[in-house]
């Protein structure tokens, strides 16, 4: 990240340690979004799968949200609670640590993915186990924990059904809630038949049968597991209580049966008080799976003697969160409770799927979260992966103004690039030219007439399919409508010939800016 002297955007004084490090974890794609999206758009099966799944969940969510009369009040409470959490984060983190330790747990702190992975590897090694069972967790996906454990000779077994599908298929997640959303039932059946030892060869693609196959596959591993690894949906600073919200019971298995439990949690997952859960446990299930309540929510506070793991750890992770917190506009992304409602309503996500975003956080929330965690330079195309339609903001249960942050990050990106370069690029040159032209009505009129010459570039259907550099950057991803034969200003002059000529210039200018009232 680049320091901008006197610029409108503030950045951490030590960028190399504040953002998520390169070379570890899954926050950066191999290719930029437009390239990845172009490939995804040619996969019609992928689009059908995602379209069907997001359509289903949108309808379910709408139904269960509609039956809550005080939904907007809950959203506002959720937003305010998270904003207050961010404002008080230092004291709340210390309070959470105190309460967890007082309840018999151990708290670890990790500046980044590398440190968090090392902490978990050491903790697992200390148990002597070479296998861990895992509850689906975005934080451990983000830091690439499974790969770090594998390097240390420790097998990490994903137990969430969708994570299992992804792991068995040697695939990558494409959705926050349902990482295998890009797979339909027939594809899941094929993966199970191919990769599950001892699976019933008569397995059908009926979802219930597929779920049963997963149950059989994982049962022994749960019952013999000695180490569980989880994330956390919420951590209550006031009480030291951690919670995991889930559906299948794989979470309960991992949180309850092993001797050792290691929870990796981003520092933003805190809520101040016990009572705050009454808000989020209403917002999350309805926004996420479209259920009034998810089947299982587990809550534990340190060690409970005689019940569950007796060796309990909490790893508090920064990995770019403090860099995000430093941005006064962008920090609202830290309020995210990972419901994925914004993915399910996003017209861009619905067409490209999650992989194109290159990060474990895809969709609208990913487009504002990933670039802030990594530094914008490493995910520069993501803030542009949106049509700014605002559907994500409407469904967000904690009212994150995603379009606002997208626009903010686009501006930050331009500022940062300008600050890091002495030679302006094509976009800046064109913007500067447009600025010069539009500052003076006579120049603008002349430019419009010049643009009519552009009709010669257009084919028979009035579309310009390619322009010479540097304007080719625009036409690479979209056609440009040919300029009309007559500009608005010329039309106005021709049809309003009786109007007072002395007033013409200013009135036409007003019309051009959308205030035409006659």
């Amino acid at each position, binding site marked *: 990240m680049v320091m901008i002297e006197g610029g409108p955007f503030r950045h*951490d*004084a030590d960028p190399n*340690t504040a953002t998520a490090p390169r070379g570890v974890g899954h926050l950066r794609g191999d290719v930029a979004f437009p390239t990845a999206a172009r490939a995804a758009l040619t996969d019609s099966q992928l689009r059908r*799968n995602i379209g*069907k*799944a997001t359509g*289903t*969940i949108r309808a379910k969510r709408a139904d269960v949200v509609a039956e809550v009369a005080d939904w907007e009040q809950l959203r506002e*409470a959720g937003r*305010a609670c998270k*904003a*207050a959490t*961010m*404002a*008080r*984060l*230092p004291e709340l*983190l210390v309070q959470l640590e105190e309460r967890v330790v007082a309840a018999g747990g151990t708290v670890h*702190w990790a500046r980044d993915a590398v440190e968090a992975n090392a902490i978990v590897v050491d903790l697992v090694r200390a148990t002597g186990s070479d296998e861990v069972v895992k509850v689906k967790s975005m934080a451990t996906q983000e830091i690439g924990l499974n790969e770090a454990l594998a390097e240390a000779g420790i097998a990490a077994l994903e137990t969430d059904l969708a994570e299992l599908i992804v792991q068995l298929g040697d695939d990558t997640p494409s959705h926050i809630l349902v990482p*295998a*959303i890009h797979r*339909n039932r027939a594809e*899941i059946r094929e993966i199970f038949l191919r990769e599950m030892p001892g699976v019933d060869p008569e397995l059908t693609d009926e979802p*219930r049968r597929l*779920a*049963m196959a*997963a*149950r059989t596959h994982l*049962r022994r591993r*749960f*019952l013999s597991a000695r180490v569980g690894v989880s994330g956390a949906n919420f951590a209550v600073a006031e009480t030291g209580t951690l919670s995991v919200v889930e*559906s*299948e*019971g*794989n979470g*309960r*298995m991992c949180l*309850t*049966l092993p001797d050792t439990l290691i929870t990796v949690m981003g520092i933003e997952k805190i809520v101040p008080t*016990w*009572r*705050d859960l009454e808000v989020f446990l*209403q917002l999350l299930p309805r926004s996420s*799976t479209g*259920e*009034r*309540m*998810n*089947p299982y*929510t*587990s*809550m534990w*506070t340190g060690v*409970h003697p005689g019940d*569950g793991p007796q060796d309990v750890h909490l790893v508090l992770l920064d990995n770019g969160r*403090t*860099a995000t*917190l*430093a941005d*006064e506009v962008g920090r609202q992304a830290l309020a995210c409770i990972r419901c994925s409602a914004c993915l399910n309503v996003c017209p861009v996500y619905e067409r490209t799927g999650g992989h194109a975003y290159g990060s474990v956080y895809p969709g609208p929330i990913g487009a504002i979260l990933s670039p802030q965690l990594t530094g914008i330079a490493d995910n520069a195309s993501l803030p542009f992966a949106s049509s700014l339609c605002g559907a994500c903001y409407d469904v967000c249960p904690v009212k994150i103004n995603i379009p606002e942050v997208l626009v903010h990050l686009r501006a930050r990106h331009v500022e940062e690039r300008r600050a890091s370069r002495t030679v302006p690029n094509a976009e800046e040159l064109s913007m500067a030219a447009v600025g010069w032209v539009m500052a003076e009505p006579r120049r603008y009129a002349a430019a419009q007439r010049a643009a009519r010459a552009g009709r010669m570039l257009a084919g028979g259907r009035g579309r310009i399919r390619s322009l010479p550099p540097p304007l080719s950057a625009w036409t690479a991803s979209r056609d440009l409508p040919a300029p009309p034969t007559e500009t608005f200003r010329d039309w106005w002059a021709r049809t309003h010939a009786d109007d007072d000529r002395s007033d013409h210039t200013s009135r036409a200018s007003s019309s051009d800016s959308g205030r035409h009232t006659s």
Partner: protein
Amino acid sequence: MSARDDVLARVRRALATDEPSIGDVPRTYRQRGDRPPGDPALIDLFVERLTDYRAHARRTTTDDVAGHVARAISEGLDQPGRDRHAPPRIVVPSGLPTNWLSATDADVIPDAGLTVDELDACDGVVTAASVAIAETGTIVLDGESDQGRRAISLVPDLHVCVVRTDQIVETVPEGVARLDPGRPLTWISGPSATSDIELDRVEGVHGPRTLHVVLLDG
């Protein structure tokens, strides 16, 4: 500098310039329902929400609770394709009222620190509950002696849960207010389920595949 001090210093630095204000959380949402715990309309709502998620519900009085628990066990285990012991093996927490089990022909096994494999050899579990929330069809267990440690209501495939009707509140905030965060808490809303295949819900994965709730009046 330790990672702890470093992270805390970064957080403070990130907030230093604008010092965001700590606003009050507006709690204008519903904090209590319209009906008191145990109200007949609440019980109806609770039953409707339970069955919507394919849990089974039955109502009874103190006189016949044992009979209903026995029927819940036999119906719960009467599933096609299910392996079961004869007589069925039912684990119970140490503090469960013994008269609830007087009518079942199952082999009742009190949990005195059973191993995971011993729990896996049980067909079902009977527990009480701590709180129930009508609007969401949720029961919450808190590890009290009539509910037991978390593993016993997890490993067996059938969960029979006896809920006193005066434990049923209308809303989530009322439920949260009645719980003690110092205890290990398990919120249960229907049998285990997944939405991971095409985002459609199917019941029955790793947790108990069958949930029977016995509502005890008075």
